[in-house]
């Protein structure tokens, strides 16, 4: 458990537990399945300490401390649940609900979009108390094809801003203004397409309220079938990001990055995240085709098509020599197929003109 082999102890809810240097109280509690509520926490990001739902009682401290930002030290005595702490959590959630247009949102909005709803259910926090002005404001004019900036639902947790900076390194968004007027913004409060945004969708998937929502997935909001998830690998490039394909009935409706994907740990790029329409596009080929004497493409069987291709290669080789052949393997194919392609070009034709389209 400990990287340097040194074990330390603290008391967590009455039990002595071990931890290693650098661990936060939240991380330790999570290992012990304590279910501390959080809204601004994303395990991939630097702890921020905004929502304060994760506060725990620490013996000797005047106030409860935020477990996500507090590093453990030996001998601490920590209580993750107590009557006052649970009351604060409920009050905080009631306050959050009061600033937000709605809590129940379509899961198609994004991976983490159900977090607020689940917590408010757990704490029965939709009491209608603390009524008042709403904080976030919808960015209605940003008509990009991917991301719905529905800040009416924003609770200012800064997860989007942090994931963009810390995970993506794009720094496309930031929080402007102060206090209750704070808004998530881009440079000069403009459109995402005019910013350094790459439309990777990371901000969408970490948003705990659905304020940033997947516009493409939401096209399927009205489909009646239940939403299903199927683990797969992004077909685009050699990184091999794990994804969860979202489907309703027979239809692929969206993509979630797999937070436990070994290659991507929740990250995707714009293609893997949003460019899935080709899968069920009407133009997509489902049969091999060859060009007839009429100049048009006609459906045919594989033997005929492969014979035509072999014939074409043979003729070209004969007429123009071995360096007239240039192979480009598809980044969407598995390694074995890429290897075969490389052998086919190098061994088959004796040229090193072979490349792969994965140059993202």
């Amino acid at each position, binding site marked *: 458990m400990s990287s340097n082999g040194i074990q330390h102890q603290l008391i967590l809810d009455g039990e002595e537990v071990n931890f290693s240097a650098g661990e936060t109280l939240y991380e330790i509690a999570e290992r012990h399945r304590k279910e501390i509520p959080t*809204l601004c926490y994303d395990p991939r990001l630097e*702890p*921020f*300490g*905004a*929502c*304060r*739902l994760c*506060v725990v009682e620490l013996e000797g401290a005047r*106030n*409860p401390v*935020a477990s996500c*930002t*507090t*590093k453990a030290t030996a001998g601490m005595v920590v209580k993750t649940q107590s009557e*006052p702490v649970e*009351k*604060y959590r409920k*009050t*905080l959630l009631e*306050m*959050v609900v*009061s*600033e937000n247009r709605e809590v129940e949102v379509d899961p198609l909005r994004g991976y983490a979009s159900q977090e607020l709803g689940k917590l408010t259910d757990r704490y029965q926090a939709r009491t209608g*108390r*603390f*009524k*008042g*002005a709403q*904080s976030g404001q919808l960015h209605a004019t940003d008509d990009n094809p991917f991301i719905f900036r529905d800040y009416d639902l924003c*609770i*200012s947790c*800064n997860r989007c801003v942090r994931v963009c*900076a810390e995970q993506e390194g794009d*720094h*496309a*968004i*930031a*929080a*402007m*203004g*102060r*206090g*209750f*007027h*704070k808004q998530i*913004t*881009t*440079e*000069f*409060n403009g459109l995402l397409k005019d*910013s*350094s945004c790459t439309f990777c969708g990371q901000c969408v998937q970490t948003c705990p309220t659905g304020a940033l929502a997947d516009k493409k997935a939401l096209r399927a909001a009205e489909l009646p079938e239940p939403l299903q998830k199927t683990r797969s690998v992004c077909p685009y490039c050699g990184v091999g990001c794990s994804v969860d394909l979202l489907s309703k009935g027979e239809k692929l409706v969206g993509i979630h990055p797999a937070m436990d994907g070994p290659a991507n740990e929740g990250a995707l790029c714009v293609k893997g995240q949003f460019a899935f329409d080709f899968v069920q596009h009407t133009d997509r080929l489902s049969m091999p085709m060859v060009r007839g004497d009429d100049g048009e493409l006609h459906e045919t069987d594989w033997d005929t098509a492969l014979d035509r291709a072999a014939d074409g290669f043979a003729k070209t080789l004969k007429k123009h020599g071995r360096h007239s052949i240039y192979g480009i393997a598809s980044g969407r194919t598995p390694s074995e197929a890429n290897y075969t392609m490389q052998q086919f070009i190098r061994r088959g034709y004796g040229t090193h003109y072979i490349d792969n389209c994965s140059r993202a």
Partner: protein
Amino acid sequence: MNSPTDEDLVANWRDEPAPLLPLLHAFHDRDGYLSEESIAVVSAGLKIPIAELFATITFYHHFAREAPGQSAPRVCTGPICALHGADALLASLDGATPMPCAGRCDGPIPVIKGQQVLIGTNAEELAPTASPLPVANPDGYEECVFADIRAEGRSTLAGYRQSGGYTALQQALTQSPPELIALITDSQLAGRGGAGFPTGQKWQAVANASGEPKSVVCNADEGEPGCFKDRAVLEHDPHAVLEGMLLAAFATGSTRGFIYLRYEYPETCALLETAIAEARTANLIGDNILGSDFSCELYIRRGAGAYICGEEGSLLNSLEGKHPYPRNRPPFPVTHGFEDLPTAVNNVETLVSVPQIVRRGAEWYRSLGLDGRVGTKVISLSGDVQRPGNYEVPFGLPLKTLLYQWAGGPAAGRQIQAVTMAGLSGGFLAGEDLDAPLDEPSIRERGSMLGAGGIMVFDDSRNIVDVARQAMAFFAEESCGKCFPCRIGTQRLEERLSGGGPTDLATWQTEITDIGSAMKATSACGLGMAAPFITDSLLKYFPEQVAQHVQS
């Protein structure tokens, strides 16, 4: 004279420490506002992502982003100026915008125009006016902070030296840093910026911490409404501040010092620049100070209008050019301060006490308090008293003595209804609690705090619920917006003090106290923890006014 080009400005500041604020000010001063082009140039010059830079600029309320920008008047509408007719003055000035308390509550209303502060109660009267010199107390108690401030020419290097200035530094340089820390520890001097942390202990922690260069920061942000003590010290005794910083630097092993000065004190900034230049010429700042091996550079950095930037974590982020949210603690600045290196952040008043303690001894300082208490505190007193101003009180002086004997009490025929403590951060004291002696434990016992020592007085002609509303509006406006309890809580409390929220008294009260308890227990910094003192004390002292407010 040609105005400097973008490239000139970037070149001037790029390699300086803490360059963002001065570079932004340079553009702001040149153009009167920060254009998108300027922001892009700064972003490229300092390699700060443009979205983040833009957002950070919006955090500060004095950075204008369009013309007329800096030249448009900003009128203080803080709690005391509101009593003096700030709203009418605001309405009478073309293009004027309101600003929170500008630290001049002991006079008429301040209006900032460009690099000048004008004061007056109507448009015709407005004129630049120096800060009043603090008056000696009528009871003849010995002072520390103001001990020599009234000496002839004190604000110049020559005058300062004539009244004993820089002898403390000279003396300290013949001894060792541990001896200086031991002396300050022995004196029991504690932070005067609000938190009251023992200064010797803080310095020891910085001295012990590893990592270099170390820094001292003089916190001159003085954003708390009703506080104007640091301004008086900085204007009338600037060299004492520098000497205090140099002593702090010597004690802690720091080689650089920053004065973080609030935007609203432009004249003070000029005075400090002069003082630093004088001191540098006299080899009091720079390399091998007074021939010793101690070297230290001092820099002034102007804020841009954000109360939270007085909170030390936020201040350090602001200096570093980051978004000025407070920092999560621990770690504390003593180990992870400016640029994550050991840093001593101290208030102006704390620092100016140091040279006096070095000259006169720890025991002398300890003996200044009354009835066994240690030392003195400057109180900025304003509002409905006849002689507002800065008073240095011995700890333990009865509040009533200050209010009535020293400051002349309220106007004839009026009663004091309530005072606010710690500026606004301590909420109200009223009734019998006005008998309290002025020291932190006694004030805390009464559910309030002394803090930075601003006390605002409201007589019985004032609508106390409305005072509370203005106070909460200030906290809501100044909340940094990072943590949920404060960001939402200050807003909801303000709404409830402005006539919003439940109309049933019991429900209204439960909402107020539930929000307040969550804020006090879970807020990420002192702003959110302190704001509910206003509502708590309002409910405690003024239940009838509250009932009337809710039910009408």
